[in-house]
């Protein structure tokens, strides 16, 4: 087993976050290792987004520490290993002069060396990402005119284009149509299994991906870490999390 497997990618210790005297996150410790597929669930306002933003240094914890690849965030430099789709990614200013292609290409900017122009590899990566998200036909459309779901797919494609080692997704597929969603789940699973990409995925749609994920974090101010997601999805645990009786896995009506 190579050494890198020993150092966690993210190493969170005793993280607390308090705003205006209100505890948002309470004493969270967790580790995320290379090529894991982790799902984060929890009720609205549970603190999922806040936690992920702290992992990425976008928000400062009240106390506790976050390390990336064993380094403190402020010393971490290899940001282009990380692809991130924030929760509010699709909020685009109507006038912003960007085609879908422009946006996906942004995924390559940090890979590019100073003064060098677009390489074959860049073009290839952008194209692949657009094919994966099925948005090749939107290439020349202005993002401001895209539908909500189309835009969300463009944002995911941008993150994929940077060919990250770690992909962090905060409810990336809200508003994406059902068929595309299923295709996206399959894609994530493939990226994780075949390309060994580490995936951290915040979602409310846990039932669908329960088979794919490795570990499940449930965040509701505190964190619970389940190494066996299927087991965790039993009604008892969930009702504790959401406060009422909940059927997460089996909550959809269907015909057989």
């Amino acid at each position, binding site marked *: 087993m190579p050494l890198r497997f020993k150092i966690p990618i993210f190493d969170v210790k005793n993280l607390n976050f308090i705003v205006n005297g209100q505890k948002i996150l309470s004493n969270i410790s967790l580790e995320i290792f290379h090529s894991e597929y982790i799902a984060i669930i929890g009720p609205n306002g549970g603190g999922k987004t806040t936690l992920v933003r702290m992992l990425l240094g976008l928000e400062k914890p009240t106390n506790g520490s976050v390390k990336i690849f064993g380094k403190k965030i402020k010393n971490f430099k290899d940001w282009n290993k990380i692809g*991130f789709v924030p929760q509010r990614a699709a909020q685009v200013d109507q006038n912003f002069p960007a085609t879908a292609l422009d946006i996906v290409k942004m995924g390559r900017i940090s890979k*590019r060396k100073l003064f060098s122009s677009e390489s074959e590899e860049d073009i290839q990566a952008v194209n692949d990402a657009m094919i994966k998200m099925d948005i090749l036909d939107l290439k020349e459309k202005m993002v401001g005119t895209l539908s909500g779901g189309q835009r969300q797919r463009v944002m995911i494609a941008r993150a994929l284009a940077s060919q990250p080692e770690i992909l962090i997704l905060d409810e990336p597929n809200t508003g994406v149509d059902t068929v595309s969603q299923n295709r996206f789940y399959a894609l994530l699973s493939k990226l994780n299994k075949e390309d060994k990409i580490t995936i951290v995925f915040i979602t409310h749609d846990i039932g669908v991906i329960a088979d794919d994920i490795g570990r499940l974090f449930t965040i509701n101010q505190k964190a619970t870490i389940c190494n066996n997601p299927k087991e965790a999805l039993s009604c008892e645990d969930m009702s504790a999390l959401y406060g009422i009786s909940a059927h997460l896995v089996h909550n959809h009506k269907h015909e057989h």
Partner: protein
Amino acid sequence: MIEIFQYEFMQRAFLAGILIAILASVSGTFIVLKRYSMISETLAHSALVGVAVALVLEYNPLWVAVVVSVLSAWLIEYLRSEFSLYSDAILAILLSGSLAIAVIIVSLGGEFNNSLFSYLFGSILSVSNENIMTIFSFGIVALALLLVFAKEFYFIAYDEEVAQISGIKVKLLNYLLVSIVAIIIALSIRVIGTLLIGALMVIPTVAALQFRVGFLHTSLLSMVFAISSVILGMTFSFYFSLPSGATIVLCVLSIFIFSLIFNKK
């Protein structure tokens, strides 16, 4: 040669005008997207503080104005990024603040042989060779920086947080951008006046945005608009005896109106 170019001052005016049109339109794209459209007004008034200070301390007003403008631009960027205030509100606040400070310095420091406000009015027709050299030598550096980091600036304008997570030095580049803009503005106001530099930064970009094309084409269009307004404006002002700066502004305004009508859906 045609009549219009037979005067040296006209040659210099064309040269300076085109130089500034390029600088203003290239930096203007990012300025408009970051909702900093009024930055030239604000920095011009900050420059006044510099001028007032320089007059009291008997320094060279131009360079003190440049320094104060850059400091003010940093303050704008600091307030926007650290406190996430509305950028246009910050500009309004700093404009009022600068003007108030300038007025108070004047009232305390007394003695100027020059109207403070005359500093805000330049004329493209009285550009000197020295002015052109200053603008040119700074302009090359500014343009180089703007072009090298164009994609980064663009990404940042689109989404700062995602840009930061992607490994772009957002903070550094933000400060770099406002510094470049502040220097362009501070150098230009004395030469061509606040009116013209403000108009050339904003209007060509907004006109170009109406065509709803991608980034590259928007930038190119905006540069074309800026340069043609300078050329048209100078020509009209020559043949119809109109004030040059104002005529250039009316030309770029006409291009803007035309873009609106042309792209109205």
